[in-house]
């Protein structure tokens, strides 16, 4: 059943909000396969297709492998393409994620973060999108339903930006954000159209004159140049993201940056955390600030490309930083966000102490008290200049 939402404040789940954003984008093609907890996105969207509210060709294929393959085929033919998945679905798309980015096809995918098997679990953690972090996709993370909705449009603009042309992934937390109804403000279809503009592929299989080729064999004489171009495009994606987010804020009044900071300016101890856990952490920040403790938060929004200089600059005043990861890299040296943040801080003249806490795997609750405990540990490290345990599982 399609959600009938109008401009102004309305209550939507994260999935319905993403589906509504897709409806407003009205992509040419959407190929998808159902998987919990992202299913509702395509389910709602199929309602829009059935009701003739979009002109999208919806292809319900037989697996995620086929879904991303069909998306790539359509994008190579010059279509604006979107899809959604989660967890094992993203894992089954793995091979194709690299094809999409290598062919420089600006596909937009909503990934509803869910833990990877085994053991089977359908609840939230970030092991799916973190595993795909080196696949050449731009990654935007979302704390709330509103942000997930807004990120869809921004992801599309960044992906299709003439200096970028890379696929982009919008990540939101499974169940916590995907299934929770929040009050959100929707844009007018007209506003969306003006913001995203029309799409004309730089190269298209349907261009008979130009007759381009995609994915052709490149041997050691050319492959590395392709990869270098791709890497440079990813570097440029940061500036494109800044430009797109600024434009979004100017048009619609909701300001977004590469990351969000919360009471970080004079903080001695900071938590760095993605997505919905930031909301919980903000409550802990407020509570500890009331006790006179100088704590703050940094929530990365753009994780690929990773804005390392800006993040180092924002954290340089802190004496201790606790990076929270909802995924483990299984490298015995902490989670993926930790590795990036710690590496970003390396070039500072005076570095904060850094620690890593792995939390909430497989949907385990992360509560205000957990954030408070982490802050207390970080405050102790700030005071003593020593980190007792570098990497530790919490919320056990």
């Amino acid at each position: 059943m399609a959600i009938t939402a109008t401009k102004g404040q309305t209550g939507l789940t994260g999935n319905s909000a993403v589906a509504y954003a897709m409806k407003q984008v009205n992509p040419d093609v959407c190929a998808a396969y159902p998987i919990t907890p992202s299913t509702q996105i395509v389910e709602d969207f199929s309602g829009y297709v059935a009701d003739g509210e979009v002109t999208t060709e919806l292809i319900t294929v037989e697996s995620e492998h086929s879904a991303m393959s069909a998306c790539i085929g359509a994008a190579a033919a010059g279509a604006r393409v979107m899809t959604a998945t989660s967890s094992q679905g993203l894992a089954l798309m793995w091979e194709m994620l690299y094809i999409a980015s290598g062919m420089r096809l600006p596909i937009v995918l909503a990934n509803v973060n869910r833990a990877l098997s085994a053991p089977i679990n359908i609840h939230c953690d970030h092991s799916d999108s973190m595993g795909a972090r080196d696949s050449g996709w731009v990654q935007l993370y979302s704390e709330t339903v509103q942000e997930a909705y807004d990120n869809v449009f921004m992801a599309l603009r960044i992906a299709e930006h003439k200096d970028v042309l890379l696929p982009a992934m919008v990540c939101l937390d499974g169940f916590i954000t995907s299934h929770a109804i929040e009050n959100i403000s929707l844009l007018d279809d007209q506003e969306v159209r003006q913001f995203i503009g029309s799409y004309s592929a730089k190269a298209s299989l349907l261009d008979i004159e130009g007759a381009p080729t995609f994915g052709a064999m490149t041997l050691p004489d050319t492959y590395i140049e392709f990869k270098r171009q791709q890497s440079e495009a990813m570097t440029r994606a940061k500036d494109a993201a800044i430009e797109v987010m600024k434009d979004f804020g100017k048009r619609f009044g909701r300001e977004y940056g590469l990351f969000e900071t919360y009471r970080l300016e004079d903080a001695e101890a900071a938590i760095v955390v993605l997505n919905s856990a930031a909301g919980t952490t903000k409550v802990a920040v407020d509570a500890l600030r009331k006790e006179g403790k100088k704590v703050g938060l940094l929530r990365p929004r753009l994780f690929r490309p990773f804005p390392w200089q800006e993040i180092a600059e924002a954290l340089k005043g802190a004496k201790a930083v606790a990076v929270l990861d909802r995924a483990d890299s299984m490298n015995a040296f902490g989670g993926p966000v930790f590795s990036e943040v710690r590496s970003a801080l390396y070039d500072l003249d005076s570095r904060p102490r850094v620690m890593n806490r792995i939390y909430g795997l497989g949907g385990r609750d992360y509560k205000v008290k957990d954030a408070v405990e982490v802050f207390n540990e970080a405050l102790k490290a700030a005071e003593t200049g020593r980190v007792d345990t570098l990497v530790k599982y919490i919320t056990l």
Partner: protein
Amino acid sequence: MSTIAEKKEKVSVPFDYNKYLRPNKLPHIWCPGCGHGIVLKALLRAIDRAGLEKDNICMVSGIGCSSRTPGYVDFNTLHTLHGRAMAFATGVKLAKPELKVIVITGDGDALAIGGNHFIHACRRNIDMTVLVMTNSTYGMTGGQYSPTTPLDAIATTSRYGNIEPPFDACEMARASGATFVARGTAYHTIELERTIHDALVHKGTSIVDVIDACPTYFGRANKYKSATHMMELIEKDGTVNVKQAEKLPPEKLEGKVLRGVLHKVERPEYCEQYENLIMQKAAAKK
């Protein structure tokens, strides 16, 4: 002459399902009206009748409603990835050919995302029994149409009716090389037990397509009055036993799906062939 009491005792001894179950994992997750529980019971009785030892059974499943079955049974169980059950099961069987490998899967799992593994297991004729619980629906994710959804049927992804022609799992299994192909329904529970038993004792890839309606999604979307109504229309009235079918005129068979053992041939089994080849080569070396 046995007394009435003894006779009563003889016919009414209830089958001890608990012997094969993990009672602490129950209740199951299946919806009221779903036939998966009936199929599981038929399977357990068939296992009992075949005299299989539960420690010698390995049950493998993928993802979906039917694939939750291994959680409830007290065998060696392996719950794997969507579509991959038969590939995992192939690994199990090759490593431990002495195990009785049973795959529990659904139509979406076996025929869509895992279609490739399905045809290749059949082609190899590797010894395993595969129960495809066909409910023409992706039940776990909200009622999307599946590769066995009939034409024109309504699903959450086919609001105006399905335009994709469905697979016949049995035809596909037979064409792919399976040496035992049968069909049952959750409605014909005694017959189903017999069919599964025959599949279990067959050497080679045995496929049992079990028609097992989903009242929650398929039923509601396609305006069936109730789960029983659905069972009667689809499973009882919509099917006919292959032996009865031989006696019926063609007009009576129109639109009916055949039940029972549809195909049974003997062909060398994969693990045995593998073993034979090794022994031959080893003997030639000596």
